[in-house]
């Protein structure tokens, strides 16, 4: 909107917004800057530019965190979780959005309630149950846990996309003799895929970043995620902060790149369902 604001108001606003942006970026700038410095340089001053770029920090972080293995684990976990959430969640979102079952209100309330359940409420029996069944260190099992945790949120978000599809499209298809499955797959899915993509991004980000479940259920070197592996590296007694920052940059990079390229979808996903119009 083009509102005539007094010059001073606008300048002051930009000043405050700029300060806020500085606050948000400052620690990240330090991370990037110091990822290219030696430890003595960092100790001399974390703000000084590097004398020469220490790329070995990245190589060492990669090696010590076993990122070649753990990045792969994280990627597989992200893929499995996203696929599970989208396939099961879109079906449920459709049923709830179009009130296809009598108990839709009850199911919705149940799902909303589980979004607020603390992980600790189900973590302990789940862990010992998984241990009993030999599912510890099993990436697929963990993706099922993530699916359970992230589904309610995803369903609520997807529901709004299903609601945006005109009901007439479905009715026309039903009149032409389509089965419920055909209506869902042929009429709705092609129209709600932008919503699916948004959900995929958010769930992918959550899964990549998740710590509590990952550190509990994926314990051995072969199944660890990048985040957990980074956590273990950084918990070691002797700390090379340059290498640690390089590792941090590596772990953060995939998310940041996706975020920058698909920011609008991220913002949609993050705000979706939280704003009451």
């Amino acid at each position, binding site marked *: 909107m083009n509102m005539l604001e007094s010059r001073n108001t606008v300048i002051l*606003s930009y000043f405050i917004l700029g300060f806020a942006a500085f606050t948000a970026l400052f620690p990240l700038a330090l991370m990037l800057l110091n990822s290219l410095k030696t430890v003595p340089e960092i100790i001399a001053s974390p703000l000084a530019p590097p004398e020469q770029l220490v790329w070995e920090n990245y190589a060492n972080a990669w090696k010590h965190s076993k990122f070649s293995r753990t990045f792969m684990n994280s990627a597989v976990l992200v893929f499995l979780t996203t696929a599970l959430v989208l396939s099961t969640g879109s079906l449920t979102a459709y049923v709830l959005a179009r009130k296809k079952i009598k108990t839709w209100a009850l199911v919705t309330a149940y799902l909303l309630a589980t979004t607020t359940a603390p992980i600790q409420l*189900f973590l302990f029996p789940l862990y010992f149950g998984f241990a009993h069944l030999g599912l510890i260190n099993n990436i697929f099992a963990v993706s099922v846990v993530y699916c359970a945790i992230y589904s309610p949120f995803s369903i609520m978000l997807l529901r709004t996309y299903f609601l945006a599809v005109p009901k007439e499209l479905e009715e026309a298809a039903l009149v032409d003799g389509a089965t419920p499955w055909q209506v869902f797959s042929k009429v709705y899915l092609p129209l709600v895929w932008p919503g699916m993509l948004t959900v995929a991004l958010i769930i992918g980000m959550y899964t990549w970043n998740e710590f509590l479940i990952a550190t509990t259920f994926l314990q051995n070197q072969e199944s660890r995620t990048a985040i957990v592996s980074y956590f273990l590296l950084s918990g070691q007694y002797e700390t090379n902060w340059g290498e640690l920052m390089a590792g941090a940059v590596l772990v953060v990079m995939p998310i940041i790149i996706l975020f920058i390229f698909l920011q609008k979808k991220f913002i949609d996903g993050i705000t979706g369902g939280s704003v009451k119009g």
Partner: protein
Amino acid sequence: MYRLFILPTMIINIAVISIPAILTIILAFYRWDGISDPVFIGLENFERLWNDRIFWKALRNNLIWTALFLTFPIIIGLVVASLLLTVRRGSTFFQIIYLFPLVISAVISARVWQGMIYNPQSGIVALLERYGLDLYDPLSRTATALYGVAVVDLWHWWGFMAVIFFAALRQVPQEQIEAARLEGATYFQMMRWVLIPGIMPTITLMMIMTVIWSFLVFDFVYVMTQGGPASSSEVLSTMAYRRAFYELKVGNAAAIAIVISLFGLVATFFYLRLQRGEGE
């Protein structure tokens, strides 16, 4: 037919969340180390908690956490969102920057702050100390450890509030804002009379969610201080985790989980009422 559609979601949800949740409730009345057979002990786990100094400390820390997160991120979020609404130009750019901390894993954020800011050798704290300021690593002292962690989580979190509130503010009818401008409203009057009332449902929802989330906080505390030093930054979730997996007192941990859930339940009750009030 349509019941089949929701079956996968429900099976996974019930198997992973509901059944273990019920088991947790049952376990709260048993003594169990995770290996041998559980022993029924009635309310003993809860009695133990009642007399547990650390439990009260953790509960208090959760309440402090709730108070911090009910004020700072919400106020900062509202101010920043209203300024974004004022300038308009560049609002997308600023939103992206404000969301950076949110999309970065808690583990990473925690380590960056620990190493680059709080660290007494390599951090900004060390640098400022050299310039004569009387600073120290807040995580190393019992009086400040919790706040040291909270600052990082606040840094991570406020952008989310700003973006949510900005999205809500954009839905306040433009004419209402223009009418107030014509009537001569100042910034604070605009906030007080038009903008805040206009997004009250969103603010209420965010406050309720903040209460719920404040009792779930785990990652930042666990990664940065493990609840220390001397349990000074312990919260209920880290305490429960430690009891279950370090001390193998699963029954005790289950009792703590139930306490956490009770706070969540009260907030959820309000949340559901709000959802219903929305008239869907």
